[in-house]
């Protein structure tokens, strides 16, 4: 039984309505208790393999399936999904969309309740899982007030509560910061110790390096390379680079910035630039009878407190800091989306207050779907212009390499293309200060490189780019400066080592 625990044989798969096959005669066997990593570019078929094992293909996502899939003695094609619930558990990519309940307790017992377990037994099991994963402090809370990392912990607990033998993780770290990834790693390690069979599809590799027994590298629906855990861990940088994988170690890149060490770094003085003045903001508003309250520097409990900060013009500035330290708040306040924050932006001798800030700033949101409104790429860009100018619109689209999609619906594009459409409308709106909130979450290395190149070219065209990110790789790729935010305050702003020479 322990050999060939999961057996995928000669599988071809095509989604319904698509003519491109996603898997090409793929065969793969996985032993019981093995921890396996699936990596490779987006669209290489990693997610399809995960969906084959948990039965979502062919039962939920329909398409043409050839070949056989066998998991723990179940023939997936002939097994109903609910029968697999206690056998295979899946942690998905997006922490926001994978919970069913509103409260944390309800979410953990959701699975066991579905399979009709005895109430007393469920309660015991919940106690065990909560203790094991050290999430006592998350109990009894609303899932909507948790951070992404905390939600992902609950998702893991909820999957574990069914005691599956096989656990699948589909890009689980996409929306997590360094600290939360550390927790996730611990969870996976514990599952490994318990002898579970674990399959992880992932772009971020550093946190899994010492955990995995086997690594599969996919390309265009086939297995291209296969390494043992030890081989993988000792792979040299050049080889990793040549396969377009994300780095295996963060230690050699800016890890001090992300670990929050080096507290003695001084903020560099910048003479010519964009100055932010009096940015104060707090989420913990006291309920005053008459609202309209301005925040001041010495208010208590400020989520953002920046009396004065000068940003170097026409550069790419990486905004870093742990989740919940105010990166997103900072971006929202700068571009004027938080109405109660009354900061002033000084750029090129002009002062921008209140709503005027929205005119020179443009934020590309983490979920870019929220900012696409029209039915074609062209209309989307024209919407941002004061006066419609088709020629300029085509120029912008051309520059971003998306002119060919001008008649398409923005929502029909891929994630990266949507991001470009949003950038195009930012350029069309004449924004000089462009803000990006986690533009590379969940991207593979190749796409990340593209985003990095794009940000650099934006800066070269006299835009100032602020990019909040968890990815050290992105900083290395494109940032001239790093702005570290801690507890809503600027910890430091400094030039990225070597950025000056490289570009000279």
């Amino acid at each position, binding site marked *: 039984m322990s050999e060939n625990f999961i057996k995928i044989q000669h599988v071809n798969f095509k989604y319904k309505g698509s003519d491109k096959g996603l898997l090409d005669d793929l065969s793969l066997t996985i032993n019981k208790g093995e921890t396996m990593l699936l990596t490779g570019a987006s669209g290489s078929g990693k997610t399809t393999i995960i969906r084959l094992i*948990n039965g979502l293909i062919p039962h939920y996502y329909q398409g043409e399936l050839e070949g056989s899939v066998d998991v723990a003695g179940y023939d997936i094609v002939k097994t109903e999904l609910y029968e697999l619930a206690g056998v295979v558990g899946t942690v998905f990519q997006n922490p926001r*969309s994978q919970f069913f*309940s509103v*409260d944390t307790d309800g979410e953990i017992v959701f699975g066991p309740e*579905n399979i009709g377990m005895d109430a007393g037994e469920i309660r015991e099991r919940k106690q065990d899982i909560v203790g094991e994963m050290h999430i006592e402090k998350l109990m009894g809370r609303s899932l909507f007030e948790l951070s992404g990392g905390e939600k992902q912990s609950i998702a893991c607990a909820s999957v574990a509560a069914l005691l599956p033998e096989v656990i699948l993780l589909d890009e689980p770290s996409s929306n997590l910061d360094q600290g939360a990834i550390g927790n996730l790693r611990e969870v996976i390690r514990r599952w490994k110790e318990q002898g579970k069979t674990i399959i992880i599809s992932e772009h971020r590799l550093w946190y899994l390096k010492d955990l995995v027994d086997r690594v599969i590298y996919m390309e265009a629906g086939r297995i291209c390379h296969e390494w043992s855990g030890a081989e993988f861990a000792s792979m040299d940088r050049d080889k990793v680079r040549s396969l377009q994988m994300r780095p295996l170690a963060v230690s050699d890149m800016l890890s001090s910035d992300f670990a929050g060490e080096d507290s003695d770094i001084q903020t560099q003085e910048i003479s010519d630039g964009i100055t932010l003045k009096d940015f104060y903001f707090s989420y913990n508003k006291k309920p005053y009878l008459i609202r309209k309250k301005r925040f001041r520097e010495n208010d208590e409990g400020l989520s953002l407190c920046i009396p004065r900060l000068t940003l170097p013009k026409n550069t790419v500035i990486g905004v870093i800091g742990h989740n919940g330290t105010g990166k997103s708040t900072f971006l929202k306040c700068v571009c004027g989306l938080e109405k109660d924050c009354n900061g002033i932006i000084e750029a090129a001798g002009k002062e921008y207050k209140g709503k005027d800030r*929205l005119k020179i700033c443009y934020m590309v949101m983490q979920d870019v779907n929220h900012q696409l409104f029209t039915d074609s790429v062209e209309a989307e860009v024209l919407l941002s212009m004061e006066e419609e100018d088709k020629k300029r619109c085509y120029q912008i689209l051309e520059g971003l390499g998306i002119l060919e999609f001008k008649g398409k619906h923005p929502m029909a594009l891929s994630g990266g293309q949507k991001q470009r459409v949003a950038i195009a409308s930012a350029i069309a709106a004449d924004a000089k200060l462009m803000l990006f909130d986690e533009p590379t979450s969940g991207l593979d290395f190749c796409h990340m490189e593209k985003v990095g190149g794009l940000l650099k070219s934006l800066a070269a065209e006299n835009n100032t780019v602020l990019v909040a990110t968890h990815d050290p790789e992105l900083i290395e790729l494109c940032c001239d400066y790093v702005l570290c935010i801690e507890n809503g305050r600027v910890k430091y702003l400094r030039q990225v080592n070597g950025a000056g020479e490289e570009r000279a």
Partner: protein
Amino acid sequence: MSAKLDPRTKLYMILIVSAVVMMSATTPLLWVVRIAMTLIPLILLVAEKRYASALRFTILYAIALVLTFCFLSEESTGILQSLLIGYCGIAVQFLPALITAWYVVRTTKIDEFMSAMQRMHVPDGIAISLAVVMRFFPTIKEEYASITDAMRMRGISFGGGRPSKMVEYRMIPLLFSCVNIGDELSAAAITRGLGGKVKRTSVEELRLRVSDWILILGFTAAASVFVIFKYVL
């Protein structure tokens, strides 16, 4: 007395209160019964430590009552007064139901509610859908907030002055997001066994305690008094 009530008691409370708000109070006795029935959910809100909403509702209700009884009992005319009467009339009439509903919605967990539905032999499909409705209200709120942010950034909050665009720009991205989230949510729920043939269990214990019976009896009595004194006597 523990503050936690059985969801079925809460539903019964709504049933009675919604019935009573349909019948208007005409005599002082009926007013007393009505106000007493309004006070119970207010007290329950306090017992659940929801002081702010309890206070807000109490003040609102009190103001409406005072205005109705002291200032508006004349044959009042004029736009302001007629509007004021409208508001106070609606407030006095329907606030009891609103307060009860608020109390129930705020203090009942979805899981509890679902197991109450199951006990009352409501089919699983309806219970699942209902749980999704409850889970989706906060999601819609979150998504809508990001969309309006994006609209302000683009300066299209008023759709260029065209109401149809105002609706379109809000509705379309919201629907796209909701459909996506729904797809992922379904996948995650199904892999955790939703929709199996076995009967769902629940860790929420449903038991009618003494406090439940007291309330059920109390509300039944109040409703009976109301009906008897209004229609029979």
